[in-house]
Each structure stands twice: as structure tokens, then as C-alpha cells.
């Protein structure tokens, strides 16, 4: 049984549906990457999983339970975490307070999780008293990921984690994502840097017009000439 499974999910923001039957299934050991052209419904898929828009058809199951249209305050305690693409840190709050907010749903002692996050992002420990709004783009992305990891998720969803970062930081963020995965957190992410992200993806999903077009391991998709021609720019 998969950690998360989307079966023919249909949904949108009230008007015409943006998702027209998306199927996704990944395990906790996987790094799943969703790629596709603009408007394909990549980010919308993540938002649909996280209850941020209305799912009108199909089902979403997570860790064996149906979670279709559940809200984040129910999903976070169950082990699902989400890093939005933009505005993903509390700019007026310190780095440490940002992390604490990630642990809001936890009533147990989370100091070991915070130590784990600081170990993964040592620069955040140095800047823990600084307002997150004063950090660079790459460091903000670390705060955003750290915040999402504070709930000890089984699955971490990231919406274009490399957007707006310089190439050096893109590699660093991708390396971090792989490391988080080796520590036992499943990853489901949307990426514009499709070729780069698929290279380390154990599950790749190519979406177009709100539907699956190709599914396979990342390297398989890169090797597929049709995927390469239509979606990876040759």
C-alpha cells in the first residue's frame, strides 16, 4: 500500500476544474517529482492534497486513511507537511519562532526535532534569533523546509523549492531534499527545473491539462524521447 495515493482526482477553485483525473502513488521511501508545462495543474495537485481547494471527484488516501478535502490542521498531525512556493516564511518572526510554528500541532517536546533541523541547516542555528524576513532567498527556503519538517512528517510536499534561487542554491536545496528523504521522509515536489529534478526522482509524473501523461521513474522519463521532446525541451 502506498503512503499517498491519488485516484483520478478532479478539482479546482470553483469554476471549471483544473485537475481532470490525476493519479499519483508514492511510498515513504520515494522522491516523487511532478513536472509539466505551465497550467498543467502541478501546484494545484499539491494544494488539492492539502485541502486548500475543493476536490469534486476521486479520492486521496494517506497512510491508509481517506483524507479527501481534509484541512491542514487535521493533515499536519497525521504526518503531511507542505512548503508553499511563495510567502513561505513568517517574515516578522525569528527563525526559531518559524520552526516553533511548524511544531504547533505537536504537544510533545520537540527540542530533538529542532536539533535535527539545525543539524541539517547549520546556518539557521546561527541566525535563529533573526527575523526570517532578513534572510537571503536560499536561507528562507531552508527556514520554510525546516518549518515543515518540525511536525515530523511522513511526507513532505514542496511547491517549486528551487524557484527564484541562484544555480548554486538550486543544487544545495536538491541535495538537502535527497538527504531529508534518506532520513525517512517521503518527498512529493513540483519542479520547473524538470530535468535536474527528475534525475534524482524515484517516481516521476508528467502532467498536462490536469491529467497524467507519463509516469515512471525519473531516469526512465528523461530517457523517454517523447517526454524529452514535449516536456523537457528536447
Amino acid at each position, binding site marked *: 500500500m502506498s503512503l499517498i495515493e491519488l485516484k483520478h482526482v478532479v478539482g479546482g477553485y470553483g469554476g471549471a476544474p483544473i485537475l481532470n483525473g490525476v493519479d499519483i502513488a508514492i511510498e515513504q521511501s520515494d522522491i516523487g517529482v511532478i513536472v509539466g508545462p505551465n497550467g498543467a495543474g502541478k501546484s494545484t495537485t499539491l494544494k488539492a492534497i*492539502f485541502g*486548500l481547494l475543493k476536490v469534486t471527484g476521486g479520492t486521496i488516501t494517506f497512510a491508509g486513511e481517506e483524507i479527501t478535502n481534509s*484541512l*491542514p*490542521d487535521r*493533515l*499536519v*498531525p497525521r504526518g503531511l507537511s*507542505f512548503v*508553499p512556493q511563495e*510567502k*513561505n*516564511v*513568517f*517574515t*516578522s*518572526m525569528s527563525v526559531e*519562532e518559524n520552526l*516553533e*510554528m*511548524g511544531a*504547533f*500541532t505537536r504537544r510533545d517536546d520537540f527540542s530533538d526535532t529542532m536539533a535535527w533541523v539545525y543539524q541539517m541547516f547549520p546556518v539557521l542555528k546561527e541566525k535563529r534569533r533573526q527575523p526570517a524576513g532578513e534572510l537571503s532567498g536560499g536561507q528562507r527556503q531552508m527556514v520554510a523546509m525546516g*518549518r515543515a519538517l518540525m*511536525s515530523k512528517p511522513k511526507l513532505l510536499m514542496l511547491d517549486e523549492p528551487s524557484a527564484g534561487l541562484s544555480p548554486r542554491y538550486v543544487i544545495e536545496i536538491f541535495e538537502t531534499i535527497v538527504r531529508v528523504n534518506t532520513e525517512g521522509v517521503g518527498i512529493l515536489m513540483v519542479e520547473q527545473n524538470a530535468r535536474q529534478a527528475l534525475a534524482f526522482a524515484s517516481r516521476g509524473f508528467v502532467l498536462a491539462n490536469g491529467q497524467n501523461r507519463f509516469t515512471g521513474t525519473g531516469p526512465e522519463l528523461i530517457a523517454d524521447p517523447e517526454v524529452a521532446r514535449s516536456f523537457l525541451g528536447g
Partner: protein
Amino acid sequence: MTELIFFINQVVISGVVLGSIYALGAIGITLIFGILRFAHFAHGDMMTMGAFIAFLLALAAAALGIVTPVPTGFLVLPIAMVIAAVLALGIDKGFYAPLRARGAKPVTLLIASIGVTLMIQGLIRLFFGAGTYSFFENEPKEIIRIDTSAIGSTRPLVFTEPQLLMVIVTIAAVVALHLFLTRSRLGKAMRAMADNADLAQVSGINTALVVRVTWIIAGALACAAGTMLALDVTLKPDLAFNIVLPIFAAAIVGGLGQAYGAIAGGFLIGFAETLAVFNWTMVLRPLNAVLPEWLQLPSTLALVPTEYKLTVAFVILVVTLLVRPTGIFKGAST
């Protein structure tokens, strides 16, 4: 030295008193704006309502024969604050929550709060009439005079017992609020939601709970501000409606959504108003002895006549918005 003491009595003490009330009111407005993104126009009337609750409790305490060294109004204040907090939650649930559930725009909520204003004022007039009441009908309002002849003043330093207690209550409330916002899990969640409501939701923060806590704090502080205003002057149905505009100015000047900004804005406007209406002749009179005949000081030399005191808040508001549009503490600009 007499002039200095006069200045302290007229400006410093009144400024602190007025500033405390403005600050406590503005905190509520700024918190509600930060969390719910609308201008809660009925906040002044929540202050008046709180004062009437305290007044009723004080009457009950007097009827029960409870006599204490502190004014009864202060004694019953904690209970009144609890009741006011519950009523604030009720007002939200009855009037604002249904609109939010339908995705109403902030301007719709603003209009709804004007409706709540009219309703609260109407209810108060229905039960209490349009007259004025005093907390000190059955007990004396103690006036504290500190002899300052030691520093060569012929005037004593004068303030009332309620004014002294008001400053103490305000300091306690501000310190408690500060600790709540910076140390407690819920207080931090409140700042998080004011900072970025979408991300707060994504983090799993129970936003409905944060909204409730906001109303509890805003309602309780409004009650404290209204009661203390009534203890300082008199209690009437339009007690705080008359000062809701300077309170809004204080919240905006401080930076909407910024609790510390509201405190700073409250005291800034409070002091500015008392300074603006202060009669400088009283302090500068000794100069008459050295000034030539044609330059004698007039009998009143105030920047603004007392009846135009309200304009001061707006002058500060306009200047702040021109120089620093998001307020002193960089609040929300919407």
C-alpha cells in the same frame, strides 16, 4: 518650579491617562485588524459596553455592602473583563463570523461593525437612558496631592487615585500582553497568523482558535479601557464613541497589526492632544516681567482650542501616512 509642576499636572499626567486609554483601545483594533483584516468600528462601543458592565457590577458590590480601600470600579474590573470577553466572542459569532464564512469583503465587515455600534449604543440607551453616571456616587474619588515645596514649588503635584491605578493596570496589561505574544504558543500563533494567515493555516495552526483568542483579548482590554475612562471622567452611552477616531488614528500611526505600535501610537496621540491644548501662558508667564509692553503674553496661548482637540489626532495621522505610510512599526498597508 511652580510652572514645571503645573506642566506635569496638566500635560504629563493627562497625557499618560489619555495615552493609556488610547493604547488599550488601539491594541484591540490593531489585533483584530491583524487577524481578521477589517477595521472594527464598534470597538469604541465595546469599551463603553465594558464600562457599563463594570458599573453594574460596582452597583451590585455596593448593594452587597462590599467596601474596599480601592475604588469599587477597579475591584470589579477583572470580572467585567471576563464578561466583556464573552460578549465580544458572542458579537463575533453572531455578526462577523457568518459574514466571514460567506467570504465577505473587509468593507462589508466594516459596515457590519457600524451596525454593531448602533446596536450597542441603542441597547445601552434602552436600559440606562442618555444620562451620565458616576462610579463615585457612593464613595469619594480620592485626590492625591504631593507637596512639592521642597523643590520650590507653590503648587502640589495632583492626581486622582483612579489615575494612579489606571497607569498600574495599563502597565500590567501591556506586560502581560507582551509575555503572551512572545512566550506562549498561542501568542506566537497569533503573531504568525497576523504575519501570514495562509502559511499559518498550512502549518496546521488552528486559525479559528486564534480568532477566538483575539476577541477575548480585544474585548477584555476594551472593557478595561472603557471602565478606566469612565472612572476618570463620567459614564455615558457615547463615552468611547467620541474617542474611537483618535484610537483608530493611534492604531494606524503605530502600524496596523502591530501591538507595540498601537501602544506607542496611543501614547503619542494622547500626549500630542494634551500638549496641543495646553495653555503655555501659564508656564511662560514669568517672561512677562522681561518682555516689553507690546510683547506681553496673551491670557491663553494654546496651539489648538480645547474644542478642536480631536483634530490633533488627524494631523498626526496625515503626517505619519505621508512620511511613513505603513506606520511607525511597519504594519499592514491594506
